[in-house]
């Protein structure tokens, strides 16, 4: 560069029309115009096509195709116009540094500290009271903003049917009848060996914390899944909470050959024969087991609740 570029703040002579900076990029502007015009015509036709597609065909693919062609055509045309036919420069713009002069900075700082100091130092009482009041406002306004949103978690045993505020309770009680999702009570003959069924306590179908996966392991065995659980299974059936102890997904995959329950979300694997202890993956705790028994009519019933609260971990869990 021979000369420094002229500054914008002074009056500049008009640029000559043949100034090279004002020339288009295209070597053959007429050809470029033809390309841009063709694209725009295609775009126009595309939009007309969208109108037709909307009114006549009413089909998603035709609408997308015509709209896409319209937008692409018009977009390509305008871009070509800008890129090949508009002044290309290069043009330059000066930057200005952002920082102010030292005097201006000092003046601002002084305005804040001196004027502020004048007020705060002489009226400490008012300043303190204002701070107190606004802090109180900030805190109490959080109550409706946060506390009104939902109930407090309850750690005590919830009443039957009131599990929506309880961290630990489910609706399983001694004697609760096991029912399938369609409401049918589960009979001892309902499942083949190797079969699984999602069950709920009667009256609470679909209630998330109550979901249980019932598995038939064998025809005759009384499965002992963990020490002390001699009568937790019955007639080859065992029942576990279906809520993964990792993140609460339903543990919906049962592999009969390996006797494993697999959670499809994050691949935690539980050993069905050993109290559903996690064998692999991120789940930290066994699936809680539901003790079950048979009533006189051959229907399955719970003989108690889970051995611990189902689902993922949280602070209050002992």
């Amino acid at each position, binding site marked *: 560069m021979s000369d420094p570029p002229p500054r914008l703040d002074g009056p500049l*002579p008009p640029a000559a029309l043949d100034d090279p900076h004002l020339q288009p990029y295209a070597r053959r502007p007429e050809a470029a115009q033809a390309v841009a015009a063709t694209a725009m015509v295609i775009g126009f036709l595309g939009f007309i096509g969208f109108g037709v597609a909307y009114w006549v065909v*009413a089909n998603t693919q035709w609408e997308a*195709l015509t709209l896409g062609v319209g*937008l692409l055509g018009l977009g390509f045309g305008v871009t070509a116009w800008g890129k090949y036919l508009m002044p290309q420069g290069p043009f330059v713009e000066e930057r200005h540094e952002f920082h102010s002069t030292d005097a201006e900075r000092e003046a601002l700082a002084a305005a804040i500290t001196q004027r502020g100091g004048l007020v705060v130092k002489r009226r400490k009482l008012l300043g303190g009271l204002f701070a107190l009041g606004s802090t109180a406002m900030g805190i109490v306004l959080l109550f409706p903003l946060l506390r009104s949103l*939902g109930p*407090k978690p309850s750690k005590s045993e919830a009443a039957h049917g009131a599990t929506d505020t309880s961290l630990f309770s489910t609706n399983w009680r001694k004697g609760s009848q096991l029912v399938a999702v369609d409401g049918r009570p589960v009979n001892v003959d309902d499942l083949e060996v190797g079969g699984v069924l999602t069950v709920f306590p009667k009256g609470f179908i679909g209630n998330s914390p109550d979901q249980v996966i019932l598995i038939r392991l064998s025809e005759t065995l009384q499965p002992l899944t963990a020490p002390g659980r001699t009568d937790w299974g019955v007639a080859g059936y065992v029942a576990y909470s279906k809520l993964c102890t*990792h993140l609460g997904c339903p543990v919906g995959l049962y592999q009969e050959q390996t006797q494993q329950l697999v959670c499809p979300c994050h691949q935690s694997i539980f050993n069905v024969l050993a109290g559903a202890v996690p064998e692999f993956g*991120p789940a930290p705790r066994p699936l809680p087991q539901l003790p079950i028994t048979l009533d006189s009519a051959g229907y399955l019933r719970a003989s108690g609740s889970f051995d611990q609260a189902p689902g993922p971990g949280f*602070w209050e869990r002992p």
Partner: protein
Amino acid sequence: MIDATLNWVDDRLGVAKGGRTFLDKIFPDHWSFMLGEIALYSFVVLLATGVFLSLYYVPSAHEIIYHGSYAPLRGQRVSEAYASTVGLSFDVRSGLLMRQAHHWAADIFLGSIAVHMARVFFTGAFRKPREFNWIVGVTMLILGIVNGFLGYSLPDDLVSGTGIRIAYSIIESIPLVGSYLAFFVFGGNYPGSGVIIPRFFIIHVLIVPLILLGMLGAHLGLLVKQKHTQFPGKGKTEHNVVGSPMFPTFMAKTTGFLFMTTAVIFLLGGFAQINPIWQFGQYEPYQISYAVQPDWYMGWLDGALRIMPSWEFVAFGHTIPFEVFLPAVIFPGIIFNILLVWPFIETRHTKDLAYHNLLDRPRDRPKRTAAGAAMLTLLGMTFFASSTDVMANFFNLPLKSVLWFFRFAVVLAPIIAYYVTFKICHEMRDAEGVGKRKRAVIIERTPSGEYHTVPTLERPGDEHHELDAIPVPTYIDLEDPALATGEGVRRVMR
């Protein structure tokens, strides 16, 4: 006419000087500067299609019987949210196109933000004076991820419902306050009192978009105020910007780009099926399907959850579920905080307090480039770890092996990526002819079998004439006699 209108406005608002400066604003040319524009324009599409969807979507968990035109669902009990989403897909003209375009636009929005951010990072565009804008940008990324999650949760289908269930458990995993927070957000124990869908809806369509719009204004306002960065080149210094003016050249090109971005989104929306919720079915808390994955921008979190060992900490009657809290709360917290404060980390390391308006070539900053590569590798590994089950099936490998591979890879791969990138940068930086314009070479074989490359001669037409940059001329002499005769107009070879 134009004069009179402008005078009328200027008498009242005084726009002449600022307006001219705005029209003269210079935009440097580089393909990578378009990445942010993709984000901007997909956001425009998101707003437009989102308004359309909000006219039909019903944010309610209330159960009704489905009676719409999708036969397999008829007679089933579904939530109003689910029924209205299926309804706007099948029973509203253009509805499916708008819904799928909205979903694609969200995926492209976050994708372009990620790539744009990588560009800004690797070229050092976040340095002084642009730290504010970097922070605004990272915040928009976080808000975009949050809003994407909220948005795909709204249809109340099986896949998204599982995602909400996981979100509940993640909130619940926070020590001390987790259960309270989860109860407050969901209005009770999971699945809550039916408030989650209306709440997600209002956050998704009003609160987050409002904040995003404000931040977008700040992002672009700062860009205008601080002006663009530019790559080094002829006549480009730390004290100027060289390129084409806002009006008309940039405006034409960017308008075209808006149209083309929109075109791609709508073509995807019409031809590439996304989130077919009628196949997944209504969410039920006891149902689940195989290969459940979130949208791509949540993958890294899902992967982190999968590879985390089951380290639950139990003591003094309390439980800290580190197997959830660490990968889903602490890990993203650390990542986003590193991103937010990166400009200051770098300044502390380099002690560089100067203004930087010229961009770096990534190879010239080996440590930064290597750090970025390590970060991308870490996130990439956790992203791929979110499909351990699909990979195990596809490659016919034991699930355990795939999981253990990723447990190691997540730690080792970033270290390797750092080292390799660092070495490559050094090699490239020291190589001959770096930064020179590429020219064709002729490969010659000597009689003894050796190969040599010989650069071709520059032909006159290849010569790269770059003019000196001038300020945008205020006036153009349209009465130029040269034009009147059609002679003497200089053609410029470029």
